[in-house]
């Protein structure tokens, strides 16, 4: 799922991925997207937002990403002019600091493959921002890798050993990566070490559920996606894995279907 680097700025490939996201994730909850105002968090060049406008009849589609990938698209596709696409609004920067979104509210917020890259407090603040900027009754549909993903930290670029980021401590991975492979990682993706892997927060399916509830969402559904690791691999590294809850351990990705309550809840039960 998601675009590999060389496909990133390819219009048809982006459309393909958006359609796959729709089919596999966003269509599941049976929402009416027509005339809605949407936000895609970690939107890359905006392919999902564009798909929503062209195929789902949304009224306004917003996308936000730290890096303005849509500007890179212009270099490759001179006819790509996102500014001229009506009702498509793409914003770059830290979500909390984008002035144009400060007072904006949305009916549906989506996110694919981004939340796992956020540090703890930033993750909590982001989910709180989603909650505060959703209309009452609005939905957040969030798909993210968990720490137990077989490609946690993107180590699949270095090794076929699954869960290498759990089986070996971070400084061992770093030492191996820098000595044997001796490559810098791309961009500013490492927050905690000087080598691989890319930072991933240590969240599991269960802790995402807890955090979502903590910030105020109703948890409508939590879909667990298998880690794609065979039983024999788990057995092979059993001495490093036995203490984890098995259900979370075998969940490499989740989709959270969250709803902001329509009305303020009765808290009398807590007053006692």
């Amino acid at each position, binding site marked *: 799922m998601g675009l*590999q*680097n*060389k496909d990133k700025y390819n219009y048809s490939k982006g459309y393909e991925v958006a359609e796959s996201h729709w089919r596999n994730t966003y269509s599941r909850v049976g929402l009416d997207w027509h005339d809605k105002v949407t936000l895609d968090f970690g939107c890359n060049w905006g392919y999902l937002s564009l798909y929503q406008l062209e195929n789902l009849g949304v009224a306004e589609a917003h996308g936000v990403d730290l890096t303005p990938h849509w500007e890179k698209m212009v270099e490759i596709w001179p006819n790509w002019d996102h500014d001229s696409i009506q009702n498509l609004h793409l914003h770059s920067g830290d979500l909390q600091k984008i002035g144009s979104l400060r007072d904006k509210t949305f009916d549906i917020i989506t996110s694919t493959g981004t939340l796992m890259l956020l540090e*703890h*407090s930033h993750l*909590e603040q982001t989910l709180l921002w989603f909650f505060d900027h959703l209309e009452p009754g609005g939905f957040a549909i969030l798909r993210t890798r968990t*720490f137990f993903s077989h490609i946690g930290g993107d180590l*699949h*670029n*270095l*090794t*076929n*050993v699954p869960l*290498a980021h*759990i*089986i*070996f*401590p*971070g*400084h*061992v*991975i770093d030492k*191996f990566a*820098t*000595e*044997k*492979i*001796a*490559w*810098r990682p*791309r961009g500013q993706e490492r927050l905690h070490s000087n080598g691989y892997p890319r930072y991933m927060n*240590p*969240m*599991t*399916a*269960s*802790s995402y*559920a*807890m*955090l979502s*509830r*903590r*910030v*105020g*969402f109703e*948890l409508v559904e*939590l879909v667990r996606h298998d880690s794609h690791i065979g039983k024999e691999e788990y057995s*092979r590294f*059993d*001495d*490093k894995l036995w203490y984890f*809850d*098995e*259900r*979370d351990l075998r969940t490499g990705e989740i989709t959270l279907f969250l709803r902001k309550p329509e009305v303020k*809840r009765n*808290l009398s*039960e*807590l007053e*006692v």
Partner: protein
Amino acid sequence: MSKKSSNVDEAYLQTRSRWVSPKEKEKQEWGEQQAKKLWDGLYGRYSLKLEGSTVLDIGCSWGYLLKFIGEHFAPGKLIGTDVNPHWESSDHGWDYASEGEKFQFFASDLSEIDQIAEQSVDLILCTSVLQYMTPEKVEANVAKAYNLLKPGGEMILRTRVWTSYIGADLHRDITLPYAHLLYSERETAEVLKRKGKMTKYLNWLTANTYLIIFTRAGFEILDARRRMNNNAPKIMERVIEEYPWISPEELLCSELEVRLIRPFEPTLVEHNNSGSDEGVEEVIKDGFDEERSEFSCIVCETSSTDFEDLNGVPDRRCPECGSVERTRGVLSWLSSNINISGLEVFAVAPSGSATRFISELEPARFDRCDIRPLNGFEIQADISEMPEVESDSYDFAMAIKVLEHCANDHQAISELRRILKPGGRLIVNGDVRGGTTTQEVDEPTSYYGKEAFEEYNIGTFRRYGLENLIELLSEFFEVKTYEVEDPPTGYKGFLIECLKNIG
């Protein structure tokens, strides 16, 4: 989703009336009882070697556990840390100062203490404090604990987890157990505010997340036990109904007790289930899949998927900086092994991309030398005879694909040695092949052309065999050989690091 009646179990309500108040916890009697309970119920479970050991208690309160250990065992040193200096209060009646230097206390978060030497602690204890830290602070404290422990040292801890029936410390002010799992933080804060109470911060970490944090810090987990909620079964049922997607093992965990060890040899030895020692390198590199790799140029971070074909070799040249495989391999080694910043550097005929890379590392001086008058190069000289370059004047020199093009390589190496300071280093790389001897080239004009050969006496004079080149360099330096590589092209080459001895 349905909500059952909030009829709280009677047994739970009776339990609440027996809770100890925070004020009572400051007293000696409570502390001594608590220390014994903790020892019998948790720490004493393990056969710990305490005699002569340095023991640290994170979140030690007034030090009751350390006092207990000091009275019952013969530890060498006892260290307590807590963000509040409870030991300074007189309520507990213990004069720790009268024990001399055996006890030491720090009123600080552990992660911010510099006065404790790394790898100086044998045992770290931690009872029910991690839940009060932000997740970032948990990670920082666990990482600090790892660093303070000697290899083989242990950390034993108990922590509440978010799924505890008192996961948010609301139990004294809100009757409903598991309130934080049934309502949001803002909702419970609103109710507390109406009651004139503050919301205490507790993190949302679950048992699995704590375990991930411990392993990520480098610890091995020797023992991990989940203590399960057994309070208020009626409300527990509501929680289970609210979270049908979470397994009971995780959802109903109240506390986690873990015994961790800092491994003896974390960088080398990992064992697999077959019981054999399998080095990390062997386990990881077996799985390397070049087809799925995606790297960036070490000079300019252009993705390797954008590299251009060059001279029939696919994905060879970086379109942005012009680097090719040899340069990238060498510079990758350089970035991991030499700190160029502040050094005086001499480079023989460096490529444009190597120039860019070195310059960005901010050397104190960077002189590029070629025998031809190249634009921008600082020195034009024949490196086999360059009296204009002072002796003992550079910290570091590079001769990448150079020596094979020097008519008199022996003299060139001697000169490169001369201009290096004692302790300085030279790196050499080129068309060097293992398992063969150095071969002289019949037609030396093949690389630089006839004109360059006639005017400057440069060409391709030989192709080095690795052993012969090492032997040659060893006449002047202490040498060490490395393999460098460039994954996008599959290039592998040798790099020889040469050290000019001091004295």
